[in-house]
């Protein structure tokens, strides 16, 4: 692979795609185990209004503002869902459906009504991201990795997603036990003195941060694929929690790499000219991996 082409045009999108996939897959493992996979669906939808409102309030698209906006939107969504569920006695799926569709609709409307022409925030981008555009033009080849000047030109999204992945990894290592215990048996966990509600909220917030960091790469709808497909496939491969996490990371990376390559080079291989959506392809590949494990994974059957 020619370094002069690969490094400036493909390296950073590939890295960002990989990190985004992993950032979502990690908390996704627990969302699935808690039967809260659709909270991932909800979070991916409410990230949009969170970012849009943060942008409008601060006038910039600074990373911290976006993170803050997304986390706040996630918390508001969860609070509203809980409120509707508890006080309205509505089942959780319907409560989620009410809240996240409304918030998403609100976000889209605000986006359309406000002037965001100066910023790369438009509805299409919000839905399926723009991974291919996160390039590193300051690079000229593999040597640029050691060139401090060129490194300054790295896309800021790369730093964001790296920080978020690192943070989620650390939090996961730190709170492994409470997470595992409260996911397995919430009543017992409460009797041990574990703050089960806080743990639940913490997971949601971590997911929201992963979603917003991945947003730039793959947009909100594909984030759901990253939350669910690699961990679901991993679930069908093993009976050990640690191994499941490892498999989910492996599948996430595979989806990102294979997806990006197929999107960029696939059409060329079959005689076409232009690339297709990398985000869409990553989601598709993750789905294919899930389908394969659903047919052939060693632990795919339910025990009861």
């Amino acid at each position, binding site marked *: 692979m020619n370094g002069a082409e690969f490094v400036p045009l493909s390296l950073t999108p590939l890295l960002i795609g990989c990190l985004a996939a992993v950032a979502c897959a990690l908390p996704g493992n627990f969302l699935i185990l808690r039967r809260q996979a659709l909270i991932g669906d909800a979070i991916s939808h409410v990230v949009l209004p969170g970012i849009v409102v943060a942008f409008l309030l601060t006038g910039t698209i600074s990373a911290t503002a976006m993170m803050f906006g997304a986390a706040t939107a996630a918390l508001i969504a969860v609070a509203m869902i809980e409120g509707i569920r508890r006080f309205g006695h509505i089942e959780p799926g319907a409560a989620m459906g009410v809240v996240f569709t409304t918030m998403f609709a609100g976000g889209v409307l605000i986006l359309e009504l406000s002037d965001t022409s100066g910023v790369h925030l438009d509805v299409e981008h919000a839905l399926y991201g723009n991974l291919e555009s996160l390039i590193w033009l300051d690079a000229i080849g593999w040597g640029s990795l050691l060139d401090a000047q060129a490194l300054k030109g790295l896309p800021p999204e790369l730093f964001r997603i790296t920080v978020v992945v690192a943070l989620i990894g650390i939090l996961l290592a730190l709170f492994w036990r409470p997470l595992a215990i409260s996911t*397995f048996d919430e*009543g017992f966990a409460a009797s041990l003195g574990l703050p089960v509600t806080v743990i639940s909220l913490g997971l949601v917030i971590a997911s929201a941060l992963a979603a917003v960091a991945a947003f730039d790469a793959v947009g909100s709808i594909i984030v759901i694929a990253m939350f669910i497909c690699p961990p679901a496939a991993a679930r069908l491969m*093993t009976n050990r929690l640690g191994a499941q996490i490892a498999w989910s990371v492996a599948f996430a990376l595979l989806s990102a790499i294979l997806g990006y390559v197929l999107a960029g080079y696939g059409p060329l291989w079959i005689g076409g000219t232009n690339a297709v959506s990398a985000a869409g392809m990553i989601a598709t590949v993750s789905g294919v991996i899930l389908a394969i494990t659903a047919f052939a994974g060693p632990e795919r059957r*339910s025990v009861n």
Partner: protein
Amino acid sequence: MLQIANAENVRAEAQFLRESPFAIRGLTVSYDQKPAVFSVDATFQPGKMTAIVGPNGAGKSTLIKAALGIIKPLSGQVTIMGRPVAAEMHRIAYVPQRASVDWDFPVRVIDVVLMGLFRKTGLLGRLSGADRKHAMSCLNRVGMTDFASRQIGQLSGGQQQRVFLARALAQDADLYLLDEPFAGVDAATEKAIIAVLKSLRAEGRTVVAVHHDLSTVPDYFDNVLLLNVRKIAEGPVETAFTDANLSATYGGRLATARIDPAAVAG
């Protein structure tokens, strides 16, 4: 003359509470304005095994969960040795109903038992060799050492219940609260579990269990609490587990076991 809480009866009550490893006063829990548990007072005796019995929907599980603070009661106070329960949770080992757990969860038998050591290790504390030995000995007490590496979904109902009990044993608590520990288990498991509970009692610990099988109450338990949303009666089996109390609890529909206190005592 009628009085509320004068100095003397408050002191007597406080003393009474201090001697009890588990006492409930005025506990009311309601869902949607229907009471699930209403104004229950109960005082459990130390070093005894107490059964909580009542018909379906009588609020037995709710009582335990509300006492532990897992669900929020409308009113009531719960004390452990006279102190508020929230501060004494480390003295309690709670064994929830088996059905409330996802048995497909990717975890092995030994991992479940090690969860019982969480208070000791905290977030990041390493599990020492002694800890693992302790966990294995708890598994040994319930006869499940051979299953230590199995995934929990592969176990039968009785085996799962034993693992739950082993987890509780690992917590080394003064008070054991079990929710229907004998539901859906085979006869061998039932014998194993009751043997463990009796050994706990021999060690001076207190055992309280929601129990569904009236015919075994006199054999297994010292005291009984009859509950149907409100407390009907509590006390030693000989005096509290009577036909009259049972029909008051179950509404006269109890056509099965006729408990003859004389036969029980004799």
